[in-house]
C-alpha cells in the first residue's frame, strides 16, 4: 500500500521541485555548519567543566580518582573508535595500555631516557605492532575476533610477568620518573590532573573530528555491512587495520601517562579483567558516542570507590551492569539524553514544539 501512495505523492512534489530543492540545499549547508558549531560548543563547555572541576574537588583523594578518570577516558575513547564506530571488538586493549606503560617505564627507569621521548617511542612501537598484527587478526569476525584479541591480551600479560629481568615480573617496576615540562614537574594530583586531561581533551577532539569525517562515515558503513561498504569503494580491510592501530596507539599514550603518574607499574593492572572493564565503559557510555565513553569511564572508575565493601567481587557487578545495560539500554547512557531533553522541553513548551526541531 505504501508503495502505491508513493507514486501519487511524487507527482505533485515534482511541480514545486526546483523551489524545494534549492531551499533544502541551503538548509543543508546551514545544518552542516550548525552541526559543526554544536560540536565545537559541546567541546568548549566540556573543556571549561574539566578546567573548573579541581576547584570543586579540593580533596586530594578525589582529584587522584579524577586523574584516573582522565586516563580511562582516553582508553575508552580509543576502544570506542574500534568497537563503536568500526564495529570490531577487542578484548586485548589492556595489553596495548600495558605495553605503553612498560615501554615508557623501562626506557625511563632503567635506561634514563627522556620521558617525553619514551612516550613517543612507545606510541610508535605499539602503533606499528598493532598495524602488523591487525592484518591477520582483523580478517576474523565476531566471536573469532574476540577470541584472537583475547589471546593477544593474554600473551602480552604473560610477557610482563615472565620477562623478570626487563619488567621486574609480578612484583612490578618502580622508580619511574614523573613527567617534567621545563622546571615544572608533574608530581602532585593537581598537576597530574591538568596534564592527563590535556591529553584527554586532545583525544576527544581527535576522535570527534574523525567520527564526523568521511572516514567516520565509512567506519559506520563497515559496521553495518562490510560487503556493501566494499562495494562503495571503501577499502574495508585496510581501514579496519588503520583504526585498530590508531586505537592501540592512543592506549599506549594513556599507558605512558599512567606509568609516569603512578611511577610504578605491575602486570596486574593490565590483565584480562581490565580489558573487559574497558569494553564495559564503552558500552555503558554508549557505542559510537565519544562523550559517552568519558561518562562510562567516569562511572566505572568511581564505582569501585563506592563499592569498596565488595572488593574482589566488583567484576561480578561489572558483569551484571553489562548484562542489564545490553538488555535494557543497548544504546548506552547517552541514548537517554534525547529522552531527558524532550522531558525538559516538554515541560517548557507545548508537545508540538519538539516536532519543529526534528
Amino acid at each position, binding site marked *: 500500500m505504501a508503495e502505491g501512495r508513493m507514486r501519487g505523492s511524487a507527482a505533485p512534489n515534482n511541480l514545486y521541485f526546483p523551489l524545494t530543492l534549492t531551499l533544502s540545499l541551503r538548509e543543508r549547508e546551514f545544518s552542516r555548519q550548525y552541526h559543526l558549531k554544536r560540536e565545537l560548543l559541546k567541546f568548549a563547555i566540556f573543556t571549561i567543566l574539566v578546567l573548573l572541576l579541581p576547584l570543586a574537588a579540593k580533596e586530594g583523594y578525589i582529584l587522584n580518582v579524577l586523574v584516573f578518570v582522565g586516563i580511562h577516558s582516553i582508553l575508552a575513547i580509543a576502544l570506542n573508535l574500534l568497537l563503536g564506530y568500526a564495529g570490531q571488538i577487542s578484548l586485548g586493549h589492556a595489553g596495548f595500555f600495558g605495553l605503553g606503560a612498560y615501554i615508557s617505564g623501562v626506557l625511563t627507569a632503567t635506561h634514563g631516557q627522556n620521558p617525553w621521548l619514551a612516550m613517543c617511542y612507545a606510541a610508535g612501537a605499539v602503533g606499528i605492532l598493532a598495524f602488523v598484527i591487525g592484518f591477520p587478526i582483523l580478517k576474523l569476525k565476531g566471536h573469532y575476533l574476540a577470541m584472537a584479541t583475547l589471546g593477544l591480551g593474554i600473551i602480552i600479560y604473560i610477557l610482563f610477568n615472565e620477562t623478570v629481568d626487563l619488567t621486574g615480573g609480578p612484583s612490578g617496576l618502580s622508580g619511574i620518573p614523573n613527567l617534567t615540562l621545563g622546571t615544572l614537574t608533574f608530581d602532585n594530583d593537581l598537576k597530574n590532573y591538568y596534564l592527563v586531561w590535556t591529553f584527554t581533551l586532545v583525544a576527544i577532539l581527535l576522535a570527534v573530528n574523525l567520527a564526523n569525517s568521511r572516514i567516520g562515515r565509512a567506519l559506520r558503513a563497515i559496521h553495518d555491512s562490510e560487503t556493501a561498504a566494499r*562495494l562503495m569503494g571503501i577499502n574495508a580491510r585496510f581501514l579496519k587495520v588503520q583504526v585498530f592501530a590508531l586505537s592501540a596507539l592512543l592506549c599506549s599514550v594513556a599507558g605512558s601517562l599512567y606509568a609516569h603518574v603512578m611511577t610504578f607499574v605491575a602486570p596486574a593492572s593490565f590483565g584480562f579483567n581490565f580489558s573487559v572493564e574497558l569494553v564495559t565503559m564503552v558500552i555503558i557510555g554508549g557505542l559510537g558516542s565519544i562523550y559517552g565513553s568519558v561518562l562510562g569511564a567516569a562511572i566505572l572508575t568511581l564505582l569501585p570507590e563506592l563499592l569498596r565493601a565488595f572488593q574482589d567481587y566488583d567484576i561480578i557487578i561489572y558483569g551484571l551492569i553489562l548484562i542489564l545495560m545490553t538488555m535494557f539500554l543497548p544504546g548506552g547512557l547517552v541514548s537517554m539524553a534525547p529522552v531527558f531533553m524532550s522531558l525538559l522541553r516538554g515541560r517548557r513548551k507545548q508537545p508540538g514544539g519538539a516536532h519543529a526541531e526534528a
Partner: protein
Amino acid sequence: MLKLKNINTYYGQVHALKTVSMHLNKGEIVTLIGANGAGKTTILNTISGITPPRDGEILFEGEGIVKLPPDRIVRRGVSQVPEGRQVFKPLSVEDNLELGAYLRYRSREGRGEIRKDLEKVYELFPRLLERRKQMAGTLSGGEQQMLAIGRALMAKPRLLLLDEPSMGLAPLVVQEIFRVLEMLRHEHGTTILLVEQNAKAALKLADRGYVLETGKVILEEVASELLENKEVQRAYLGRDKKEIWER
C-alpha cells in the same frame, strides 16, 4: 566495454561459474536471467571483485580488472547495487548517498561536483530528498531500492550492475525504477547489467539477454528474441508447457 573470458569462480569446493564468457557494449542494457542458484549474483560479485574468479579474464574498457580489489574496481567506474539493497540502515539517507561518493572526496574534483550529483539524485528520486535526514532503515522497500541505486550513482559509474532491483516491490515501484534505468542510459549513456527474477520486465527493458543455468551461459540472444523463445517462455516467463508446445 566489459568482457568476461572463460571465468571460473568457486565458493570453496563449489564450482559456481563454469567457464562463463560474456560481453557488454557501451550504452547497452543487458540482462541476466536464470533460476535461483544459477550464478547470476556470483557473476556480479565476480566483476565487482567481491568473489574473485579462480581463473579467466575480465576486461573493463580494455584493461584487466581480475586481480584488483573492489575499491580499485569502483574507482575504474563500476558500481554495484547489491542484492537485497543493503543500504546502511543506521545511517541517514544523505550519509548513505555521500558514502556512494566515498572515493571521489579524495580525488581532485571539488565537493561542488559531488553536491551537484547529490542534487541530481534527489531530482531523480524526490522521495529521497523528503527523507534525507531519516535513518535508511526506516524507509520502505521501494525507497530503499531507490536509495541503493542513488548511492551507486554517486560514484559516477560508467557501468552499473544491478542485482534484482525489483525484489519484493510493488509493480508500480518496479515500473518507476525501470523508467529511471532507461533514462540513465539515454541521458548519461550508462551501461547497465541487470540481474532479474522478473524476466519479462527485464527483457522488455534490455537490448540483449543471457540465460544462465547452473553456472553456465546456455543462451545469448537479442532481448526481443528471448521473449519469443519458446524454451525461455516456458522456463522463465511463466507460460504453461501446454500453452506453448501442445497447441
